[in-house]
């Protein structure tokens, strides 16, 4: 049942989206890129510590997918989740503050980079255990189905999660129970230093969908519109009660696995080739082709985003650290809170 890649989907999506909407896709991608670049800078200045995984290069996936959802839909992600969290609508201030370990952060500084969570925008968490988010997404889907609510769940995970038992357990039951879950595998070809062909027996990952009797597609993750089109279709299916889909978005992370990984296992040439397929430049080029006058607007967006990021850093830097009395507060739920 695996679908052939629909080469015209992106073009159709461009035609259905107006310039304002395309501008919004652009804005979100630039926001993530600038955010991540700033995080790298803050990390090297010691403002951010710990384990930190950046999303630069993969923006087309999170932004295209999440733009195809409603605000009330749910998103689950991994430890490389700053991008998904921002795309879902969390404020740059609160994400940056969390990375700084400040009390104004999303998780009040208790979780840090790998454990973002924002209930208000239905970003249901980054999971630092590889594969850990998938069963949870199934549970969210189960709850939506049980309550007969129209929401769908979009679950992001890496190519590295496929060899985990949790992948099989989750896709199997999501399909059998026709749960409203969209599984999006961000295939960036590497799980740390391990190439996908050394980790997964079927390296065309979307083919896994066949054995679970759900639709599977491979999309170009560097083309935000192609991702948008595929997720729109999967979301409609899920919302209509026709069950889950598996979308493999082929993409590339520009930086090492984490801030401490120099990525010596891949070639500079390979990195350059991917930089040329940059999702932001891609969309910019497309918008300019359609309307050369769009440039001024895009430059305004660039400027506005820079201000948002600078403001986020200032906010994070000036925010206080959590007090020691915070510690026991969130271990158990209690009525007194």
């Amino acid at each position, binding site marked *: 049942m695996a679908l052939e890649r629909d080469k015209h989907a992106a073009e159709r999506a461009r035609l259905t989206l107006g310039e304002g909407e395309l501008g919004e896709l652009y804005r979100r991608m630039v926001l993530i890129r600038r955010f991540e670049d700033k995080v790298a800078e803050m990390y090297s200045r010691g403002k951010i510590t710990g*384990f930190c995984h950046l999303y630069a290069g993969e923006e087309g996936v999170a932004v295209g997918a999440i733009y195809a959802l409603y605000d009330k839909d749910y998103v689950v992600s991994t430890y490389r989740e700053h991008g998904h969290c921002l795309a879902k609508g969390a404020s740059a201030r609160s994400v940056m503050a969390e990375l700084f*370990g*400040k009390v104004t952060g999303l998780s009040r500084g208790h979780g840090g980079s790998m*454990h973002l969570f924002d209930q208000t925008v239905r970003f249901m968490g980054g999971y630092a255990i590889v594969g850990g988010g998938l069963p949870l997404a199934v549970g969210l889907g189960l709850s939506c189905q049980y309550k007969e609510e129209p929401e769908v769940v979009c679950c992001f995970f890496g190519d590295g999660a496929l060899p985990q038992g949790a992948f099989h357990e989750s896709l199997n039951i999501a399909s059998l129970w026709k749960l409203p879950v969209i599984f999006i595998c961000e295939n960036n070809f590497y799980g740390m230093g391990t190439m996908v062909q*050394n980790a997964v027996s079927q390296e065309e990952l979307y083919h896994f969908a066949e054995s679970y009797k759900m639709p599977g597609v491979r999309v170009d993750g560097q083309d935000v519109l192609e991702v948008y089109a595929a997720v729109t279709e999967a979301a409609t299916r899920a919302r209509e009660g026709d069950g889950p889909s598996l979308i493999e978005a082929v993409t590339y992370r520009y930086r090492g696995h984490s801030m401490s990984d120099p990525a010596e296992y891949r070639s500079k040439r390979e990195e350059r080739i991917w930089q040329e397929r940059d999702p932001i430049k891609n969309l910019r080029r497309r918008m300019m082709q359609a309307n050369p006058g769009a440039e001024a607007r895009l430059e305004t967006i660039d400027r506005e985003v820079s201000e948002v990021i600078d403001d986020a850093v200032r906010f994070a830097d000036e925010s206080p*650290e959590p007090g020691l009395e915070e510690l026991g507060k969130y271990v158990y739920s209690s009525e007194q809170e």
Partner: protein
Amino acid sequence: MEATYLKAINQALHEEMRRDDNVFVMGEDVGELGGAFKVTEGLLEAFGEDRVIDTPISETLIVGAGIGAAVLGMRPVLEMQFGDFISCAFDQIVNTAATLRYRHGGQASCPLVLRAPSGAGVHGALFHSQNPEAWFTRVPGLKVVAPATPYDAKGLLKSAVRDDNPVIYFEHKRLYRSIKEDLPEGDFTVPIGPAELRLEGRDLSIITYGGTLHQSLDAARIVEKEGGLKVEVLDLRTLLPLDREAILATARKTGKVLIVHEDRLTGGIGGEVAAIIAEHAFDYLDGPIRRVCALDAHTAFSPPLEEYILPNTNKIVEAIRELAAY
């Protein structure tokens, strides 16, 4: 030759693989990358990919396949990239490996080593900072070790490889590059079981292991300098089975016991150590048994919160003063 804690582990792996063809290493990125912390660096070049096996992210598989190979006489040394991920393989460890020999009436054994880099203090937050040893120290059939020095790291790993039982080997991430020691040339082992007296004293005993050994020794030196207190420091080294004789001997000698570990207070090994002393050395005690451990909290990301949660030299010094004055 001088070696860091990390280098000592690496040397033990090299030497054991050279000594016995049945020894092989398996885990995530242990080959070409040399492991997330570079502990297995150089093994692939020395022994080839048949014996240094990169797996995908499949903890259940790593341990389970290790068990299968061990049953047929191989000696796998398996790596959990972070000790925190050991919970993904929990079933294979406690249900399959630990019970294997018993279940089969002694027909087969399970000689594997499971290395688990553990410990906090690296701002790793909730899933990259845990000390999961106490989940395993109540499971018959397993052995659990937690070396604190390069010498022990090397010697205990060699013993673990040669042991015919499943051994979980907790190595503290913070020690990897922070401590060095002169190691003797040639083959040596440290037996699984015996604790080691790191410092002789008479006024009070600290019983500890792993990362907090060094903080305990520092604290002992500080109180000796300031007031002449002679603190004895016992390094457990092996957590299952515990060296009851050594625990009781130091308790009987000084009459005051402070237990220190980085794992959380409740349900930590300190509770078991205290119970052994209370049961068998009660008459010798001159004060309550005290514990300095991580607070019963999750390891927060926020650096000041993390520091507040963890034991440190100051907290140990204070506990020594209080207990000494009791």
